[in-house]
């Protein structure tokens, strides 16, 4: 007979660890939505493309292809490249197009990101032939730790540690530094930020690249955890990522982190009691309840625009 506290522990810990991955993915999405004002569908495609190309690199004879650090770096760089590409071909031209109203710009960036999602996704399908690609064992083999009935893999612990470091670093940078202040100005109002001397183009490119890097990193960590990668992983995560960003409140770093872990735990318990097939739906159930009570997200600013 297992003790009740121990059993809760066995369900909750994997939930929290899964939440770590959600957090990294959602952090990039939050940058896109909160700072760049792009409802970024392509974020999911970046998450998929990065591990696909990195695993291909690991299987090649290029320098460093047997080092897990180099392979992860390749994945992150793929994300950065995608982010910069998105800024250059889509976000910047739409920001500069003066004929567009705010509404039209919002719509244009959304559809633009769908187009980029289309492009990146088809590259993924071309490279993988829509098959599951295994993560090479000689590059990274995740070992599992066991306490009682609780199994935790090394990849999960690495993911969670990375999430804590990333969120801590970003929270400090945004709150304390000059760069962070300029990013906040940008998030508040693109035009006004430009008027007070923020280099909007540079900061927008930087944020887009960082968001891409986070998508790439999340993809690499997910591939390491699963020891394989399926190109369908992205879309599933995208829906959850948006739930986290919206419930956490747009642009709230702490909110994103807390809600990501909360979603991981909630899913673990719901999966335990009702079966895993209801997990995603439960996430949306929680979302609708939260939004009905607080239409601006749980921890977000309740913005009211004057007419």
């Amino acid at each position, binding site marked *: 007979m297992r003790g009740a506290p121990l059993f809760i522990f066995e369900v909750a810990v994997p939930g929290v660890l899964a939440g770590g991955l959600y957090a990294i993915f959602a952090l990039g999405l939050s940058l896109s939505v909160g700072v760049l004002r792009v409802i970024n569908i392509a974020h999911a495609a970046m998450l998929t493309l990065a591990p696909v190309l990195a695993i291909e690199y690991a299987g090649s004879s290029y320098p460093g292809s047997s080092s897990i650090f180099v392979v992860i770096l390749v994945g992150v760089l793929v994300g950065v490249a995608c982010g910069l590409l998105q800024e250059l071909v889509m976000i910047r031209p739409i920001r500069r197009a003066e004929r567009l109203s705010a509404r039209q710009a919002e719509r244009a960036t959304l559809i633009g990101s769908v187009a980029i999602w289309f492009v990146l996704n*088809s590259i993924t399908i071309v490279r993988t032939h829509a098959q599951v690609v295994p993560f090479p064992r000689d590059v990274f083999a995740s070992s599992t730790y066991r306490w009682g009935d609780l199994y935790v893999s090394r990849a999960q612990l690495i993911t969670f540690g990375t999430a804590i470091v990333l969120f801590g670093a970003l929270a400090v940078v945004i709150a304390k530094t000059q760069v962070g202040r300029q990013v906040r100005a940008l998030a508040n109002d693109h035009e006004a930020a430009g008027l007070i001397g923020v280099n909007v183009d540079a900061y927008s490119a930087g944020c887009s690249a960082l968001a891409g890097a986070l998508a790439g990193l999340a993809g690499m960590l997910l591939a390491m955890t699963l020891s394989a990668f399926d190109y369908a992983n992205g879309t599933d995560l995208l829906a959850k990522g*948006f739930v986290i960003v919206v419930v956490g409140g747009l642009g709230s770093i702490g909110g994103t982190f807390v809600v990501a872990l909360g979603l991981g735990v909630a899913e673990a318990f719901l999966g335990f009691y009702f079966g895993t097939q209801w997990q995603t*739906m439960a996430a949306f159930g929680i*979302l609708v309840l939260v*939004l009905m009570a607080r*239409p601006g997200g749980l921890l977000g600013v309740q913005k009211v625009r004057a*007419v």
Partner: protein
Amino acid sequence: MLDVLRLSDVAIDIMLINCVLAYAASAALSGGAFNVAYPGFMGVGAYSAGILSGDHGWHPIMATLAGIAVALLAALLLQVLLRRLDGVYLAVASVGFVVLIGALGRNLTSITGGAIGLHGFRAQLSREELVLLVAVIAFGFFVFGRSRLASLVAIRREDPELASALGLKVDRMGTILVMVSAGLGALGGSVRAYWLGGVSPGDYVFTLVLTLMAMVVVGGVGHWSGPLIGAAIFTALPEWTRDLGTWRDIGIGAIVLVIVRFAPGGIAGTFQALWARRRMRTMARAEGRGGGVGAPLKPLAAATQEAS
């Protein structure tokens, strides 16, 4: 007859069905709010067809009407729940409805057939019937597009603050648009399910939100011909570029990007703007030769059209 188009019969049928689906998406998006629940309504229509016709032997027309009724009820309920949301919040919450329908389809195995779905209830409309259906819907949108209400909807889409400042009943307008979207969505889903003779939970998912949205935007949001143009392009392009293999999707994505960047009004909106500009020029020339009293009013109307 249509050999010049180099499209197979199947592709033409699919194109016509896609037109119906695109009109459902267009109705929801023309109000400006990102209520993207339409694949969920299509799922409701498709499952009603499968459950009522396949398992209980209902006549397709009765089953389709029942599906539309269920979708309208669901839309009303959804509207009550999501009434206060806007922008990205509404988009994400309404995707929840799509996920809900998918999850119900997958998990209520005894009714919906689970992951396999329901099959074997084919009842295809003929080509003429499909054309008639699309023509009726397109005509409805055409007539609506000429009404005063349509310009109010356009104001709501492009500038919601102005709309409420003008005292427009923004909420009620949104509800009506979502109901139209739900009805058309259920109709289209049902027609598609009967045409395929099957429905499975993978048919009406998140990806369909994106594909239909891309169709509507490329065609032109808020213009009656937008969904027709979008559905035609998105069905024909993959057919024409079949030889390019999987790389063709990259090209399609690039085309969408170019249109979004250079023609925010979509193809229909761009032609309308060009047409308006040409008319303005002819009028200016006429004015130079003496002009008419009503002349100053016309450019204003043209300018508003261009702005939308």
